[in-house]
Structures are given as C-alpha cells and as structure tokens.
C-alpha cells in the first residue's frame, strides 16, 4: 500500500477517546476482553436497534466503567463538562480552551 492512509479518526475527540481507553487498559483498569464485552453490551440497548461500535460508543462505555469503579463519578464528570463549556464561552475564538478560563474556576 503506497497510498497514504486517511486518519482513522474523524474528529480530534475520537482520537482522545481512543488514547484514553488504550492508556487506561494499560494502567490495568480493564482487560481487552472486559472492554469488548462492555462495548458489545452498550451497543445493544434493550428495545432499540443495534448501534455502531464507534467512538461515541467507546466514550459511553468508558464512562460506565469509570463510574462503576469509582474512578470518576457521573456528577463530577457532568460538573467538569459544564466547567469546560463555560471556559469555552469565555475563551476568544481560536485560542486554546483551558479550564482556568471558566469564570467560576477555583483552583
């Protein structure tokens, strides 16, 4: 194959999710078998059609495992998510978005 391969990620957040899952697997948080099993469950919601095993499904699977293990509970994740959205709004367009830009940020 001499053609350059296209990026396997369609957006930067997909790449970040992939890298987080690989890192956490290597940190021993789960095995690949556990991961595949959880991902497989997540994309088969009861009473709804099967979903793609895409990076959105990876993210949801990862959040589920982290909540269950007490590593990142959903309330903290939701609060931090809101903080990032406020930080983004307060960041001039084109500049990097840092959590410190959140007007409610407390170190």
């Amino acid at each position, binding site marked *: *194959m001499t053609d350059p391969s296209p990026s396997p990620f369609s957006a930067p957040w997909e*790449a970040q999710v992939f890298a987080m899952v690989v890192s956490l697997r290597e*940190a021993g948080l789960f095995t690949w078998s556990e991961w595949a099993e959880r991902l497989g469950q997540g994309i088969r919601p009861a009473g709804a059609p099967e979903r*793609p095993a*895409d990076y959105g499904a990876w993210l949801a699977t990862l959040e589920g495992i982290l909540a269950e293990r007490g590593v990142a509970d959903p309330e903290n*994740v939701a609060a*931090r998510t809101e903080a990032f959205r406020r930080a983004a709004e307060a960041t*001039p*367009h084109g500049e990097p978005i840092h959590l410190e830009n959140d007007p409610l940020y407390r170190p």
Partner: protein
Amino acid sequence: MNHHHGDHDHVHHGSELSPVEARVRALESLLTEKGYLDPAALDALVELYETKVGPHLGARVVARAWVDPAFRTRLLTEATPAIAELGIGGRGGEHIVVVENTPEMHNLVVCTLCSCYPWPVLGLPPVWYKAPPYRARAVIDPRGVLAEFGVTLPETTRITVWDSTAETRYMVLPLRPAGTDGFSEDALAALVTRDSMIGTGLPKALPVEPAEMPV
C-alpha cells in the same frame, strides 16, 4: 476573503465545545488530576495510530508470505511470532491468526460483537467494519456483502467467515495476483489493500499492458 466579517462578527464571540467534546475534555482532565492519565502519553498514542500503524504493515507481511514459503508456513501456523519477525506487533495483536485464501476458499473477517480488529497489521478499523449492517450481514450473507464491495467469486469458491474477538483477531492472506512473478517484495506489498486483508476486497489488479505503465 472577507476581513470585515471577522472583525465584526467573530472577535467578541467565545469558542465552542460541542457536548461530546466537552465530555471528553472533562474526563481527560479529571483522570489526569487523579494520576490515571498522562497527556503527553495520550498525544504519543494518537500520533502513533494516525501516522505509523496501518495496513501498510499488514501488506509487508502478505508480501513476505508470497515470496518466502517458509515464512508463509510459520505465518499460517503461528502468526503472532511470524509477524514479529518483521518487527510488527503490540497491543491489539497479542494473538493474531492468519487465514489463507485459495482458489477453493475465500476468507472474510468480521467482529460480530463490536469492532475487534488486528491493530498492529491493519491499524484501526474503518467505519463500516464497526457498523451493525456489516456485523450482521457478513455472517448471514457473505456473498451478498462481497458483491457490495465489488467482489464476485466463482460459484465454486466457498466462503468462510471468521469472527474476531478481543483474544483472537484474524487477518486474511489474499491470493497472490497472477502475473507477478519476479516482483520485488515492495512491488508486491503495493498491490495489497486493507480490504484484501479483511476479505472484503482483492489485491489490486495488474495493468493489462505492462508496456504502457509509466516508468
């Protein structure tokens, strides 16, 4: 193009993070604070899979198997160590099994559960590989799936479908195209496509008139 547009409309506006982008940033920052993640390691992983790991590596394995019968035997007997001889291996490829196409048998790989795939040799899977239609139909109607990929096999060629899992991930050794006697390994590797190693494609065909090939 329109400088005034930027001056008046954008300068006073903040940035935007989509809901999913914000969730990912949130998880990454929480897990970094807790010491589970190292942002530099994440960047290195992304760069590795965006620029280094991909189907060009599997193509080298296939080309070697086409020119070296002893390697081919080792590859089909125990693929992971054979692939490691070429310096290829790592996560997502702890146990790779290579299945060989013959005129009588064509192999097709799927992960019916989710998206298990032999990363060290093929990189990360394409979108269609992870989608419900392929996951379901590869097993039920492999010949129909192949037709959608533009592959028509002789009626006498049987199709075997292999279901990859987290533990065992399959790769297809496609048939060497006719008319490639004397080709170098590099020239052969250039004929090997990603899909030919999943089984949804065949290696690139040779030009009919080699004399007309640009040199």
